[in-house]
């Protein structure tokens, strides 16, 4: 196959995702989920101005998208293009159209139809008490893997791109300044935003001019990556305990702005530079340590193709704010499309950002050599060609963007996991104080990260395992969706087939990793992998039992019979 132009790739990819939205999601909305504009959504039924609040669908989409988008749809594709650009491209586009969109949309719909309850509660309702426990285990694992994997990603990037050190840590000062300016001094937000963005980019210029490298022999007996990991966990522990208005809220805000600037820069540069994809369509000269494409591709790229994490956002949060049930199609499906676009951008940057195929293979000479640093290098040369920003500076911009994204996930994840730990404590009858719960979380994540060696090289073992957990969660969510659809007597194959595919790939990938981890003697990850396999098998068994039971049960009536006047909204005006 001739090397295609990246612009062609972008147009085909965007075209497919848009077609997915306009055609496939319409089919889902009409035939499968049967959205009803008259259905009284939980936002109307339980309005309390706190959790339940009817929200404009564009604003809701904005929240939904910024909650689900992060560094993961960049990291996954940046690793997975080692198999060539074509498999990653196909998985991202088809995955977004037929799986991620359907999954996010479906989770949102199912939760809306069940009083806005979370997926965990739904698994309790539709699978039973065991299903609920299973869900807790999977979520705890997922959060733990996120923290460890992202700490490795950030530390690696800070070492590879020392220019990003000053803007990364300086961004915290900018965020605190923004928070104070808004809450204490009540300055105009537009002006504060402009100043904040200018400050951030000034820091990027400064960092580019004065890169900060830790001594290569390390400090305190740790490698440079190890030092960064320690500092990152100290930071995330503190940040997760501060009142949110001080740091997290302004930081999320600046990051959101930065997300749109970054996406604009990348796609703008691709449009102007139209670089050629130099990477092979299918890489037939794979490095020796590369695991088999099937099944590992399907867990390496989770976010951007299908991600169980989205179901948590869909079901816990967005479903309580849905104004009309028909908005679920736009918010849920289009949220997945936004993430697919991010993944597509990462594929282009990592396959078209190089001069020759040989140069590309130098970067992908081992499975552990790919990933975000290559995205930064490749993306930088595209930006350099398209927008004439010097490569070094472009690389600093991209590295800062990715680090800030991943750091957001790191401290939000610490915060979320703290709540889970406190909840587990409550079940056990012990009250765990905030600082102690945070300490437990940080210690667990820290232990997991350093079990992979203090130089961050273990990130490549952690990442696929994180993807596997994420896909397991997606499989669980799709299973619940299938059961709901069977009970309603609706067509369920559009959900069941992806569910079967995802669960099969999850178990298969976990098995392959089991062998690898055993050979590597990595006992900690081996235990986690075994837990994943047990949980996945458990999901499968419970799913089959619940589905068979649902098939025998009498079908639930449709809206025209079931809805009382009280459960209806007035027709839109």
């Amino acid at each position, binding site marked *: 196959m001739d090397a295609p132009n990246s612009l062609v790739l972008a147009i085909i990819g965007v075209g497919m995702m848009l077609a997915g939205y306009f055609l496939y999601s319409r089919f889902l909305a009409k035939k499968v989920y049967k959205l009803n504009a008259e259905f009284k959504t939980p936002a109307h039924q339980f309005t309390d101005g706190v959790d339940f*609040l009817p929200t404009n669908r564009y604003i809701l989409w904005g929240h939904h998208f910024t909650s689900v988008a992060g560094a993961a749809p960049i990291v996954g594709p940046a690793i997975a293009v080692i198999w060539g650009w074509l498999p990653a491209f196909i998985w991202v586009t088809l995955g977004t159209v037929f799986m991620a969109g359907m999954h996010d949309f479906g989770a949102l719909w199912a939760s809306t139809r069940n009083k806005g309850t979370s997926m965990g509660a739904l698994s309790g309702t539709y699978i039973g008490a065991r299903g609920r426990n299973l869900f807790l285990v999977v979520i705890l694992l997922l959060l733990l893997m996120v923290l460890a994997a992202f700490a490795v990603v950030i530390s690696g990037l800070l070492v590879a791109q020392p220019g990003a050190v000053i803007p990364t840590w300086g961004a915290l000062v900018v965020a605190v300044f923004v928070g104070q300016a808004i809450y204490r001094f009540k300055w105009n937000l537009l002006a504060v935003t402009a100043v904040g963005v200018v400050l951030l980019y000034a820091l990027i210029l400064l960092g580019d001019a004065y890169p900060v490298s830790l001594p290569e022999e390390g400090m305190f007996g740790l490698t440079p990556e190890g030092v960064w990991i320690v500092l990152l966990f100290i930071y995330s522990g503190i940040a997760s305990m501060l009142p949110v208005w001080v740091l997290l809220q302004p930081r999320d805000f600046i990051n959101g702005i930065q997300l749109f600037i970054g996406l604009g820069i990348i796609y703008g540069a691709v449009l102007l530079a139209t670089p050629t994809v130099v990477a092979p369509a299918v890489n037939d000269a794979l490095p020796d340590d590369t695991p088999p494409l099937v099944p590992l591709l399907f867990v390496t790229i989770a976010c951007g193709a299908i991600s169980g994490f989205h179901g948590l956002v869909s079901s816990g949060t967005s479903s309580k704010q849905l104004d009309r049930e028909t908005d679920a199609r736009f918010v849920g499906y289009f949220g997945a499309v936004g993430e697919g676009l991010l993944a597509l951008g990462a594929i282009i940057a990592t396959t078209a950002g190089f001069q020759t195929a040989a140069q590309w293979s130098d970067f992908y000479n081992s499975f552990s050599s790919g990933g975000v640093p290559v995205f930064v290098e490749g993306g930088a040369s595209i930006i350099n060609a398209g927008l004439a920003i010097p490569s070094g500076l472009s690389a600093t911009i991209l590295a800062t963007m990715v680090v800030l994204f991943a750091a957001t996930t790191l401290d939000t994840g610490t915060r979320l996991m703290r709540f889970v730990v406190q909840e587990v404590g409550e079940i056990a009858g012990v009250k765990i104080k905030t600082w102690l719960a945070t300490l437990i979380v940080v210690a667990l994540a820290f232990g997991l990260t350093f079990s992979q060696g203090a130089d961050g090289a273990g990130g490549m073992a952690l990442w696929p395992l994180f993807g596997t957990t994420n896909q397991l969660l997606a499989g669980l969510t799709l299973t619940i969706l299938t059961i709901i659809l069977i009970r309603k007597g609706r067509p369920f194959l559009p959900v069941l087939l992806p569910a079967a595919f995802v669960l099969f790939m999850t178990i298969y990938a976990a098995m392959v990793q089991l062998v690898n981890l055993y050979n590597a003697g990595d006992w900690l990850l081996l235990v986690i992998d075994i837990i994943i396999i047990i949980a996945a098998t458990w999901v499968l068994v419970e799913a089959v039992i619940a589905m068979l039971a649902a098939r025998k049960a009498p079908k639930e009536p449709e809206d025209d019979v079931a809805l009382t006047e009280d459960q209806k909204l007035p027709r839109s005006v």
Partner: protein
Amino acid sequence: MSWFDRAERGLREFYVAPYRRVFARAKRDEEDLFMMLVLSEALGVPNPASGATLELLPEMLDRMHDWHIRQGLDQSPLDGMQCC
């Protein structure tokens, strides 16, 4: 409305909205605690400021129902004050 105002409003929504729930919930938790202080005498907890909180009781009665539901009690815990 000028585009400047509209940009300011949109931006504010973007800033405030993701954490609106967090703040609202923190505020609600604070008010729940306050409700418990006001009701403490009735719940059997000695309250040195009961003279002052007694005056607040009529003000708080409207919110009583939501409060006891949030605390996981289907019925009002106070014999003298039934709201549902």
